[in-house]
């Protein structure tokens, strides 16, 4: 939990002002004396957010608040008839409301208003803490009508409206804010110094200018000298902006990974030394190691700092067909975890190698296919364990053979027993993680917040409205730009009407 706190705190630094909500629910879990000072906001829409820390934790809490909470509960937890008793945990399979895909099994809690944190109808989903599960749940909630991600301070604001919060307790929050790992600290600093902020601000400025020009055309073109060419310039600028934001949105989640951690999974056959590798990497005997095949049954997770990057390392059950139903479930989970991994360490035992070392590439390919049916090379590293059992001469041969077979992912030959080759492996692992996260100090700033993503997507959608109405109703077209700007503003800060007017008067001679 300590580690988790650290990750979340980096996130708080990133967008201190905007991010308030993500932390409040954690802190204010204790019940407050009920005093309703104002009527509940029944007409408001329904909001949701991850209320526990963003990052590795056994259990994550996603909170939903607002009139449509009950619909969210019904459709996600498949509760068609009765609702669970208020404030009582119920274990349910959580399904995607549209695809009916299984997202997780978790606890659901139903808090009918006013006896809830916000005073409104609320639902909590207590789910497994992996980012895939969390994102899956958040996306599923976002796909429901009338639900949207919470805005800055929104849970808190609603709680205030319902007279549920006392702010004195908020103020101790500042102490929680400090960056845990070095890379996160750097990214946090970068954001504060405004790299990402700068990018969004630039966009905001461009859009503000475009909007101002459209507004000038609306408010002043009749009887003033504002040329029609102004609108053409806006067309060009808006379409460029749209392309840029879309490109930014498709950055393969590098920044988010840096913020919430890279999911690294150790997988392979039974008894190849996965748990040994796991224990070495986390520098403590976190997983049970034994010579018995199938010792690890469940997925074991631990957060790590590797080369300054946050990593969530998972050890999984060895992959084999088995009649033991517990182990079969373990294998199933292992496969699921591998599916969601950012990086898989595929472990193989030297004992599995064929006599003819020239056959090694073929064996490795088949093995990889078994472990990772949908393999992408950048997603895995091969680890040949039990190097101590291999003659030194063989190592050189294997390395030579593999050099002639560039189709395979990089291979590390190491021994968990005597730590030989471990140093090289760690360097390789660190490089790979760095690539996955993107170096926060290099190239363009990447996207770090799911919330940013939501707003940027909204911005792109809003810009589409401009084109939809450009020729028929300029007021509605301008509305598109305006709501695009509002979406950007939710990340960078507000843009008021006065600022729009400032641009208008700077750029045009208004004479009426």
């Amino acid at each position, binding site marked *: 939990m300590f580690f988790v706190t650290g990750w979340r705190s980096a996130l708080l630094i990133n967008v*201190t*002002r*905007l991010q*308030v909500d993500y932390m409040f629910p954690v802190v204010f879990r204790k019940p407050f004396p009920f005093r309703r*000072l*104002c009527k509940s*906001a029944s*007409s*408001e*829409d329904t909001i949701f957010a991850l209320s526990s820390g963003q990052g590795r934790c056994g259990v994550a809490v996603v909170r939903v608040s607002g009139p449509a909470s009950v619909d969210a509960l019904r459709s996600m937890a498949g509760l068609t008839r009765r609702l669970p008793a208020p404030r009582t945990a119920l274990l349910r399979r959580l399904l995607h409301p549209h695809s009916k895909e299984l997202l997780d099994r978790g606890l659901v809690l139903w808090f009918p208003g006013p006896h809830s944190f916000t005073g409104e109808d609320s639902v909590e989903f207590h789910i497994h803490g992996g980012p895939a599960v969390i994102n899956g749940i958040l996306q599923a909630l976002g796909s429901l009508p009338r639900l949207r991600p919470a805005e*800055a*301070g929104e849970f*808190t*604001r609603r709680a*205030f*409206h319902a*007279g549920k919060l*006392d*702010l004195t307790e*908020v*103020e101790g929050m*500042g102490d929680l804010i400090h960056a845990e790992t070095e890379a996160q600290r750097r990214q946090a600093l970068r954001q504060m110094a405004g790299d990402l902020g700068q990018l969004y601000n630039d966009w905001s400025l461009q859009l503000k200018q475009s909007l101002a020009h459209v*507004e000038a*055309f*609306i*408010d*002043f*073109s*009749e*009887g*003033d*000298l504002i040329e029609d060419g102004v609108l053409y310039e806006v067309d060009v600028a808006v379409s460029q902006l749209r392309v840029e934001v879309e490109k930014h949105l498709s950055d393969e989640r590098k920044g988010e990974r840096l913020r919430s951690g890279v999911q690294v999974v150790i997988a392979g056959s039974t008894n190849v030394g996965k748990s040994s590798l796991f224990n070495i990497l986390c520098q403590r005997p976190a997983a049970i190691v034994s010579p018995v095949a199938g010792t690890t049954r469940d997925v074991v997770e631990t957060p790590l700092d590797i080369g300054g990057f946050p990593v969530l390392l998972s050890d999984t059950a060895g992959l084999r067909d088995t009649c033991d139903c517990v182990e079969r479930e373990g294998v199933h989970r292992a496969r699921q975890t591998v599916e969601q991994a950012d990086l898989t360490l595929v472990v193989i035992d030297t004992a599995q190698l064929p006599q003819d070392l020239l056959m090694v590439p073929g064996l490795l390919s088949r093995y990889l296919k078994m472990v990772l049916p949908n393999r992408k090379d950048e997603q895995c590293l091969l680890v040949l364990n039990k190097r101590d059992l291999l003659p030194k001469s063989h190592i050189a041969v294997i390395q030579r053979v593999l050099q002639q077979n560039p189709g395979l992912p990089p291979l590390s030959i190491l021994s968990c027993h005597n730590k030989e080759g471990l140093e090289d492996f760690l360097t390789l692992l660190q490089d790979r993680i760095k690539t996955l996260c993107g170096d926060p100090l290099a190239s363009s700033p990447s996207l770090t917040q799911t919330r940013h993503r939501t707003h940027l997507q909204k911005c792109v959608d809003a810009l589409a409205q401009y084109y939809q*109405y450009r020729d*028929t*109703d*300029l*007021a*509605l*077209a*301008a*509305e598109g730009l*305006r709501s695009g700007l509002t979406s950007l503003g939710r990340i960078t800060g*507000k843009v*008021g*009407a*006065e600022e*729009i*007017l400032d641009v*208008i*008067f700077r750029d045009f*001679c*208004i*004479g*009426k």
Partner: protein
Amino acid sequence: MFDMSLARRLLVRQHFLSDCFVRAASNAARLKYDVVVVGGGHAGTEAAAAAARTGAETLLITQKIQTIGALSCNPSLGGVGKGQLVREVDALDGLMGRAGDRAGIHFSILNRSKGPAVWGPRAQIDRGCYREFIQSELLNMPRLTVIEGSVEDLLLSAADPEQPGKHKVTGVRMANGGGEILSGSIILTTGTFLSGSLFMGQTTSPGGRMGDPPSCAGLSHCLREVLGLKVGRLRTGTPPRLVKDTVDFSLTELHLPDSKPVPFSFVNKHTQCKPEEQLPCHLTYTTPGVDKVVRESLNVNSHIHQDTRGPRYCPSIESRVLRFPGRQHQVWLEPEGLTSDLVYPQGLSMTMPPELQLRLLREIPALRRVEIRMAGYGVQYDFVCPTQLFPWLQMKNVQGLFLAGQINGTTGYEEAAAQGLWAGVNAGRIALSLPPMSLSRTESYIGVLIDDLVGRGVTEPYRMFTSRAEFRTALRPDNADLRLTPRGFEEVGCVSWQRYQEAVRVSRGLGEALSALQSITLSSFQWREKLGHFSISETKSTLISGKEVLQYKDVSFDLLASAFPDILSPYLEFSERLKIEAVYQPHCEKQRQEMERMRKEESLALPQDIDYFSLPVSLSDEVREILDRARPSTLGAATRLPGITPAAIIHLLRFVTKVGVTTGEAAYMQVRGPKPDCWRGASVHERDREKATVVQS
């Protein structure tokens, strides 16, 4: 009370045309009024009329009854953004819209091609006719007395300790020994007359408008020194008036009015002026010679050397040339009236010496032989920083004192009228021991205007633009009656029964028509069969309602009504409004939540006596300073202050909740105690009965 006013009203009818003065003098005898309005401009006239409509005995004091309703600058009304204000003033039963319909001589809807939300109803106005209409309305209005005179000072007493404010007004002292008039609600609408000075070339003279004596020296002193109000200075200007016969219109572009003039007022079906009787406007441009004269005149033009802030959007020709040199600037030649021999050159406001003005004008080909009837001049005047006002336009510091119009730093007839109306309503309400009311940004441009003024203050003369309204698509000129008239009658008490009935009828008709449209559902194939060729998407397999079809560009309500005459033909009179509603409803729906959030925040009052610097919550010094300077009345106003962070808002919420969630008005109400419920409906009915009696007589 009503007998008296009826008697006075009849008296007025007899005397009005023959001798206003006599009538004025006869009424001055009454020395105590519910509401006193000082100033007879657009703010003052609407304020007086609105206060009287709410049921308060009202006195309007003006320097000259003759100049009541004068258009001191441009002979036009409305426009983009301003047109919306005129519509809203009309929807609250104000005078301006009807006066415009009576006096308009060239009607056009600006922005026709840009979407109904930003249409700008506008008209050129016959000055004389406008003045006449306003004067006859006011002089015939029950519960309203008009007198000529100058106010020298405000009468003050100790403040009521249970209400916010350090002072309390109890009346006015008239100049020249005119005695005292008592009243607990006073509205100042002195326009540019507060320490006003006129500029032309290098000469300066005291005054607020050319041809009128300066006034308000005593008032200025009282506001600044006695009441300690923060005052700023602004400037404005007006162009020379040209002799029509000396303009060569053949060298200009002709601009014709709309062939079907659309009235401003919701109660008028057509304008007074017949379509074919309307006058055209003419457009011409400045030349490089104009630039040259401007540059030569700089050393003899003291107005533009002043630091005082002028408007950026209505600049003098001097500042236009200086800011954007080498350009052609538009000059609109506008008629001043049906029979007037003058022309108003819009865009050529200037303050250089008269001989240079003439030289400048004659650099424009169409004005080569032009003669000036009255030279252009500049005005500098004091305004009271409007952040010192509550959203109901009463001074925070002075109980019973209301300000409206240019004195609050605005410019424009429409802006003045809108404030005047709202100040009048509230002065009337307070005089009648009713709680004050404010209008939300989410329901009206008037709300946007007042919220901007009291929330942010002004740094230049404030003018309305559509871009100031965040909910522009909902605040359209076409639906001002639906937005405001019912509330104006039911809650505010400033709207007549007839107008209310009409708004209810329209609202019901629109509602029925929309549900009728919704009830017609056909497949896209069937729609094509019914309506003939139009571009409905082929792939759409689901049923489409009539309302959705009406959103299509090429589909009009008339077209639908011809296809379904039984269901839709009763609603043909709402044809255009239905089309707009159908197109805009989905967008307004999207904004609804945001509007509700804003309304909620607007309902959370921040106490006026908070010491932001010692507030024991974590706010940055910067934020504290902003809050201290602006002293927002509500949390909503605070969120709109530049530099205020969401975190600061959360911290402020704590105080709102601590103090108790009440609106400013409600807090006021608690102190004053509520008035019996029956008041609202009763007074309106009584008033209407009274009106009926008068008409019969």
